[in-house]
C-alpha cells in the first residue's frame, strides 16, 4: 500500500521509527520495579512445597523477631475481611491466601512485610508452616475417574473434578458425514502447559493514602481499567470505592497474556498497604513467575477429519480435556469457556463440524490463559493444521495441493464457517502461493526426494492458518458483563498539537507510535505532534485492554472514528473561515480547501487555533472527541508459513533451515512494527514447538521451574525469519486493518511439526506432540531402526 501522507506527516504505511524508543535505549523506561515511594515497604511470599496439603499451623514468631519484619499476613488475617478468596474472570473462585489447605506447589501461603526486600526474604525463610500432605491429582484423565479425590472441597455441592462441558456445532450432520466418508483420520494431540515468561516478571506498588482514602496501584497489567472495576467489586465491602482507585500500568516488559489475570500477590500487596497506610512493593522473582503465575494450553485433544479420496474435506470432530489446574482462572470472554476454540475449522471449507471441551480441576496452578494468542486460537489452529497434513499424507497428496483444494475461496467471503463464525475477508491461496514462491517449494520437494534416497532426513511443513482476533462485538463478548469495546479520546490543542488517550495498554507493541500514525493519517497532524497516553485509569477512557490482538481491531478503530468526529467539526470551522459551504470543501491530508481553488485553504493547525479563538457562532469551542468502539465483527488475519527442517539422524536434533512467513493483516499501520511483531511471534511459536513445556511429576512437583530447564529460545536456536505479506483489507474495520501481534505464534508451531513429521512419515511417524525435543526424535528414530 502506498502511503497517502507524506513522510513528514507519517500516516499509515510509513515505517515511522518508534516514539517509545528514545527512553528505552537510554535505560529511562519506567517499569514497575523502578517505582520508589517514600517509606515504601516490601512484600515477599511464603510458598507451598506441596501440591496438595492441609495446613496444620503457621508459626510466624521467628519471622516477626527479625528486625525490620513488620508483619506476616496469613489467610486467617484476610478471612477477617473476607478477602481470602477472590472471584476469577470465569466466575470460579481462587484463593488469595489459604486458610486450611494448599492446592498446588508454589501456591501463596503467607506474606511477609518488611522494610527492605532482603529482610522480607529473610522473613519468608523464617516462617514455619506445618503441612499434612494429601493425595495429588495431576493428570486430568485420572481426575475424572470415580475414585479420584475431589479437589474443590470448598464447594459444598462439588462431587467430582469436572468443571464444565461445552460443545458447539452440528453433531448429527457431522456424525453422518463421518459415516459417509471415504477417508477418515484420527489423532490424539496434546498441547502442553507452557508459560509466557515475559522477561519482566509481575509485580506492583500499592499505595493507600489514608487521608484521601485513595488507592493507587502501579501494576504490571494489560487491562488496567478492568482491574480497577474488579478491585472495586471485590473489595467494595472494605471501603474501596471505584472513584478512589487508580490503576497505573507503567512501562511493561512484555505481557503476552500473562499480565491479564489478577494474581494473589497484587491483592495481598493492596491489603497490606490499606492496613499499614504505607506504600507496599511486591515483585516476583523468576521462579515464582514460572511456577505460580497462570499457564497456557494444557489441552488433551482427540481430532478426526473426514473427506473423500480425491482430497476434498467434509467434516471435523474434536473432543478435548482442558486441564485448568485447581481453578478456572482463564481470561476468556465470559460466554466462551473454551475461548474461541471453535475457529478450529481453520482456512477450510467444511460441510459440518462438532467440537466438545470438558474443563477439569487438577493440583496445578491456574491454567487457560493465553500465550500470545486470542483465547485458545493456537490450540485450534495447531489441531486443524496438523490434521490437514495427516489427511494429505494419508491419501498421498502433496500438503500444498491438498490445502489449495480445500481453502475457502476469495469469492466466498464474507464466509460463514461450519462453526458459525463469519470470516470477514481472505485470500488463502494467494498467501500460500506467495510463500511457496518465496521458499522455492518445488525445488525443495525434489531435494527431499534426493536426500531421502541417501537416507538423509529433511522435511517441509506448511501451516495455512486463519486467526480470529479483535474481541469483540458486544452481542457476544463481555468479561463479567463488561462489554468488550475499547476507546480513544483525542484532544487537539490550540497550537495544533494532539493528546490522545486509549483504554488499551502497550507492552511493547508500539502503540505510542501506531496510534499517532492513525491520527496523522486521518487528520494530517504530523506524527511528531501527537502524544499518546495509555495505562492510567484516572486519565484514560475506559477500555478492556491489550490482549488477544485486540488493540488494532478495536482501539485503533475507536481512534479512527474519534478522528472522523473531529474532522467533521474541523470541516465546519474551515467552511466558516473560508466563507464557503462545507459541501464545497475537499480534504487532503492536513488541510481543507475549496473545490477547484486549492489556494483557498485552511490547514488543520489553523483550524485547531480557530476552534479556540474564532469558532463559528453557536458552535461549542474546542476540538476533541471520544469514541467507545463496539466492533461489528471480529477480524480474521491469516497467512501461510513454510518451514524446512533437517534432522540429525544420530542425535535427533531438529534444525530449522529456513522459515518463510507470509502474513495478511489487511491494511498496515506501520510495516516496520508489523514485521517486528511477526519476528517475535514466530520465535514464540518456535519455543513451544521445540523446547518449552511445563511438566509435573506424580507428586505435583514442577519440573521446569526456572530458566535452567524452561528453555526459552536464544538467538542461536532462532532462525533468520523470512517474512512477506499480502494485503486483504477487513471490510468492516474503519481502517481496513486486522490484528497481527499473535498470528505468528498461532501459526508457526504447526509448520514446524508438519515439517518434522513430513521428514519422518515414510518411517511410519504420523504425529509428534510438541515440544519436539531432540530426545523425543532420537527415541523415535531408534524405534524405527534409523538411529542406533
Amino acid at each position, binding site marked *: 500500500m502506498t502511503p497517502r501522507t507524506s513522510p513528514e506527516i507519517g500516516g499509515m504505511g510509513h515505517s515511522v521509527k518508534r516514539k517509545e524508543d528514545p527512553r528505552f535505549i537510554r535505560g529511562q523506561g519506567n517499569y514497575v520495579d523502578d517505582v520508589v515511594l517514600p517509606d515504601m515497604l516490601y512484600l515477599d511470599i511464603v510458598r507451598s512445597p506441596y501440591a496438595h496439603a492441609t495446613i496444620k499451623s503457621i508459626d510466624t514468631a521467628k519471622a516477626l523477631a527479625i528486625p525490620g519484619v513488620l508483619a506476616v499476613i496469613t489467610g486467617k488475617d484476610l478471612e477477617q475481611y473476607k478477602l481470602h478468596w477472590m472471584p476469577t474472570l470465569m466466575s470460579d473462585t481462587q484463593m488469595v491466601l489459604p486458610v486450611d489447605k494448599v492446592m498446588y506447589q508454589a501456591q501463596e501461603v503467607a506474606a511477609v512485610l518488611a522494610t527492605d526486600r532482603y529482610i522480607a526474604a529473610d522473613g519468608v525463610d523464617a516462617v514455619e508452616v506445618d503441612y499434612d500432605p494429601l493425595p495429588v491429582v495431576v493428570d486430568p484423565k485420572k481426575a475424572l475417574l470415580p475414585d479420584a479425590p475431589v479437589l474443590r472441597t470448598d464447594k459444598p455441592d462439588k462431587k467430582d473434578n469436572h468443571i464444565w462441558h461445552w460443545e458447539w456445532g452440528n453433531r448429527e450432520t457431522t456424525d453422518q458425514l463421518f459415516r459417509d466418508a471415504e477417508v477418515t483420520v484420527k489423532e490424539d494431540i496434546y498441547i502442553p502447559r507452557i508459560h509466557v515468561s515475559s522477561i519482566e516478571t509481575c509485580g506492583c506498588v500499592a499505595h493507600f493514602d489514608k487521608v484521601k482514602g485513595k488507592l493507587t496501584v502501579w501494576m504490571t497489567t494489560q487491562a488496567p481499567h478492568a482491574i480497577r472495576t474488579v478491585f472495586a467489586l471485590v473489595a467494595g465491602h472494605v471501603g474501596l470505592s471505584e472513584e478512589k482507585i487508580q490503576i497505573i500500568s507503567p512501562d511493561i*516488559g512484555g505481557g503476552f497474556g500473562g499480565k491479564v489475570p489478577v494474581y494473589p500477590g497484587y491483592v495481598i500487596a493492596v491489603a497490606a498497604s490499606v492496613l499499614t497506610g504505607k506504600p507496599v512493593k511486591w515483585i516476583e522473582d523468576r521462579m515464582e513467575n514460572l511456577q505460580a503465575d497462570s499457564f497456557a494450553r494444557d489441552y488433551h485433544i482427540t481430532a478426526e477429519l473426514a473427506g473423500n479420496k480425491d482430497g476434498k474435506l467434509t467434516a471435523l470432530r474434536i473432543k478435548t480435556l482442558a486441564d485448568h489446574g485447581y481453578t478456572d482462572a482463564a481470561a476468556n470472554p465470559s460466554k466462551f469457556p473454551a475461548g474461541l476454540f471453535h475457529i478450529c475449522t481453520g482456512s477450510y471449507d467444511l460441510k459440518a463440524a462438532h467440537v466438545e471441551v470438558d474443563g477439569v480441576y487438577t493440583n496445578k496452578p491456574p491454567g487457560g490463559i493465553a500465550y500470545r494468542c486470542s483465547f485458545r486460537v493456537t490450540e485450534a489452529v495447531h489441531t486443524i493444521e496438523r490434521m490437514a497434513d495427516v489427511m494429505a499424507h494419508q491419501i498421498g497428496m502433496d500438503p500444498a495441493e491438498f490445502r489449495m483444494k480445500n481453502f475457502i475461496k476469495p469469492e466466498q467471503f464474507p464466509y460463514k464457517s461450519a462453526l458459525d463464525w463469519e470470516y470477514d475477508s481472505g485470500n488463502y491461496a494467494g498467501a500460500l502461493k506467495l510463500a511457496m514462491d518465496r521458499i522455492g517449494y518445488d525445488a525443495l520437494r525434489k531435494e527431499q526426494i534426493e536426500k531421502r534416497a541417501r537416507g538423509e532426513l529433511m522435511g517441509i511443513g506448511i501451516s495455512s492458518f486463519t486467526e480470529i482476533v479483535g474481541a469483540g462485538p458486544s452481542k457476544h463478548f463481555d468479561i463479567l458483563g463488561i462489554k468488550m469495546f475499547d476507546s480513544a479520546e483525542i484532544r487537539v490543542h490550540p497550537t495544533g498539537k494532539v493528546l490522545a488517550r486509549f483504554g488499551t495498554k502497550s507492552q511493547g507493541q508500539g502503540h505510542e507510535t501506531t496510534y499517532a500514525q492513525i491520527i496523522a493519517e486521518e487528520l494530517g497532524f504530523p506524527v511528531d505532534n501527537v502524544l499518546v497516553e495509555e495505562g492510567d485509569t484516572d486519565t484514560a477512557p475506559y477500555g478492556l485492554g491489550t490482549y488477544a490482538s485486540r488493540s488494532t481491531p478495536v482501539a485503533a478503530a475507536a481512534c479512527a472514528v474519534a478522528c472522523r468526529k473531529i474532522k467533521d467539526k474541523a470541516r465546519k470551522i474551515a467552511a466558516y473561515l473560508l466563507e464557503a459551504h462545507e459541501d464545497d470543501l475537499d480534504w487532503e491530508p492536513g488541510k481543507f480547501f475549496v473545490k477547484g481553488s486549492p489556494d483557498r485553504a485552511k490547514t488543520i493547525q489553523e483550524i485547531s487555533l480557530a476552534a479556540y479563538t474564532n469558532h463559528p457562532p453557536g458552535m461549542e469551542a474546542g476540538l476533541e472527541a471520544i469514541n467507545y468502539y463496539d466492533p461489528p465483527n471480529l477480524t480474521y488475519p491469516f497467512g501461510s508459513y513454510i518451514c524446512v527442517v533437517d534432522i540429525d539422524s544420530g542425535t535427533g536434533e531438529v534444525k530449522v533451515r529456513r522459515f518463510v512467513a507470509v502474513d495478511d493483516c489487511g491494511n498496515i499501520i506501520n510495516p516496520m512494527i508489523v514485521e517486528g511483531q511477526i519476528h*517475535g511471534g514466530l520465535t514464540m511459536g518456535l519455543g513451544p514447538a521445540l523446547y518449552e513445556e511445563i511438566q509435573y511429576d506424580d507428586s505435583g512437583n514442577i519440573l521446569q521451574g526456572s530458566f535452567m530447564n524452561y528453555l526459552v529460545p536464544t*538467538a542461536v536456536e532462532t532462525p533468520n525469519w523470512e517474512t512477506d505479506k499480502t494485503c486483504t483489507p477487513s471490510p468492516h474495520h474503519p481502517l481496513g486493518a486486522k490484528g497481527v501481534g499473535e498470528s505468528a505464534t498461532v501459526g508457526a508451531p504447526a509448520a514446524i511439526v508438519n515439517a518434522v513429521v513430513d521428514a519422518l512419515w515414510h518411517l511410519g511417524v504420523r504425529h509428534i506432540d510438541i515440544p519436539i525435543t531432540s530426545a523425543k526424535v532420537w527415541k523415535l528414530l531408534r524405534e524405527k531402526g534409523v538411529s542406533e
Partner: protein
Amino acid sequence: MAKVPIRVKVNGVEHSTEVEPRLLLVHLLRENFRLTGTHIGCDTSHCGACTVVMDGRAIKSCTAFAVQANGREITTVEGLEQNGQLHPLQEGFFQEHGLQCGYCTPGMLMTGYAFLGTNKNPSDDEIRHAISGNLCRCTGYVNIVKAYQFAAQKLRDGGAQQ
C-alpha cells in the same frame, strides 16, 4: 548485618558507600545509585537483562555481589550516551527496530558494548552466539543482529570510540 565499605566507579562517577556483604550488584546500581536502566529478569544469570560492563567485560549483575565491584569500573546503559551523542549501538537499536518492550534492551546493549570492543567485524553468527546469554521474548532477535551490525559498521567508520 555488618556493612563493608566499597569504592566503585560507575559511568565515570566515583562512589564510596557501605553495603551489606550479601547485597547484589544489581541492587547497588538500581536502588543505592538509582540507575534503574539495568533490569532484573531471572536472578539466575540466564536472561541477561541485568548485564553491565565491569572493567571491559560484560557480567550479569544479578549474580555478582556489590562487594565484588570494589575498586572496579562499571558501565551501565546510562553511561552509553556521551555528550548528548547516542552510542552507535543505541542508534542501531533505534534504526533497526531492535527493541519492543525495552526490558531486555539495556542488557543487550551492554553485551554488545563489550562484544564490539573485541570483535570489530562480526558475522551474524558470531553476534547470535554473543547474545545467547541475553533472552528476548519480543523481537525474535533478527533486528537485534541488524542493530549490532549497524553499530559495528558505524564504529568501523569512526562513528564513536569504545
